[in-house]
């Protein structure tokens, strides 16, 4: 990180530390231990999910084996939603309370969200092609996911365009909040647009208000997949958050050292 950018960091932008050992050797060891435990749990959950997806869940009547992609697709979508919820919460808290750590929550989560939205957008067409003989359909859920992807990729772009400062975090938080509030409106408008046109019903509507059109084994597999992915999210997020904290502290100390000279 360049010296000029560092020197523009205000005193306020540096995080608070709550004790002498914070980010020190002992505390880091404890963090890594908890991560290992979480990692172990995640690994187990993912393996169980994998087993269930391929061996436990029955093949779908019409679509065959490709349908198994569904579990991955939906679980990724779920993970992305969790990630963006955290971005929203972090941004909201930052504007409300002003503590830097909330912005770091959002920062750590946004990249994960974009990654898994990308996975949704890739697995969708991979599924659509064999089944409906088309790579892309402009149907509501996929289209909304596309807009979602664009909004949060724009968030990352926005973050990259500012030097580190409280103003940057405020501006990015505002954008994250607006984007999140916009998501339901985007979905409704796209869906209404599509209702009037030919593509209605192309995307399988397995979960609607009245019933779930899946066999019980499939539902269980789906739930387990989503749970495993939630653990995965926690694992990834904690790591990114941690790296961010250490990086912040390094910047802060470098600044203090520079001011001394």
């Amino acid at each position, binding site marked *: 990180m360049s010296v000029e950018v560092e020197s523009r960091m205000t005193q306020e932008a540096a995080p608070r*530390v709550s004790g002498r050992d914070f980010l020190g050797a002992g505390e880091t060891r404890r963090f890594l231990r908890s991560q290992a435990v979480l*990692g172990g749990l995640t690994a187990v959950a993912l393996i169980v999910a994998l087993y269930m997806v391929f061996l436990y869940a029955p093949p779908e009547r019409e679509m065959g*084996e490709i349908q198994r*992609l569904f579990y991955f697709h939906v679980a990724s979508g779920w993970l992305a939603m969790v990630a963006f919820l955290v971005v929203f919460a972090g941004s909201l808290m930052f504007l409300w309370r002003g503590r830097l750590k909330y912005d770091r929550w959002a920062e750590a989560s946004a990249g994960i969200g974009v990654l898994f939205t990308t996975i949704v957008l890739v697995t969708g067409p991979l599924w659509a092609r064999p089944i409906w003989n088309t790579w892309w359909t402009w149907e509501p859920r996929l289209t909304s996911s596309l807009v979602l992807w664009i909004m949060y990729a724009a968030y990352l772009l926005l973050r990259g365009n500012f030097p580190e400062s409280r103003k940057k975090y405020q501006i990015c938080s505002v954008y994250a909040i607006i984007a999140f509030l916009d998501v339901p409106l985007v979905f409704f408008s796209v869906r209404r647009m599509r209702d009037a046109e030919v593509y209605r019903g192309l995307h399988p509507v397995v979960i609607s208000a009245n019933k779930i059109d899946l066999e019980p084994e499939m539902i269980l597999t789906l739930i387990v997949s989503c749970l495993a992915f939630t653990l*995965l999210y926690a694992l990834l997020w904690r790591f990114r958050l941690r790296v961010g904290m*250490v*990086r912040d502290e390094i910047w802060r*100390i470098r600044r203090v050292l520079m001011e001394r000279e």
Partner: protein
Amino acid sequence: MNGYLFAGYSAILVLIGVYLGYQHYRLGRLSRELAHLREELGADEGRELSGEG
């Protein structure tokens, strides 16, 4: 078909594992740098760290 899916899943899990390993490595490297910087900060450490930061 199943084979491809399974291979795809596994590949992604492997990539995730690689990414986690990378984060671990990066954390280690940054922590070492942090410790080094804190030493440099030296005697004022107590004051600097527990003050308004």
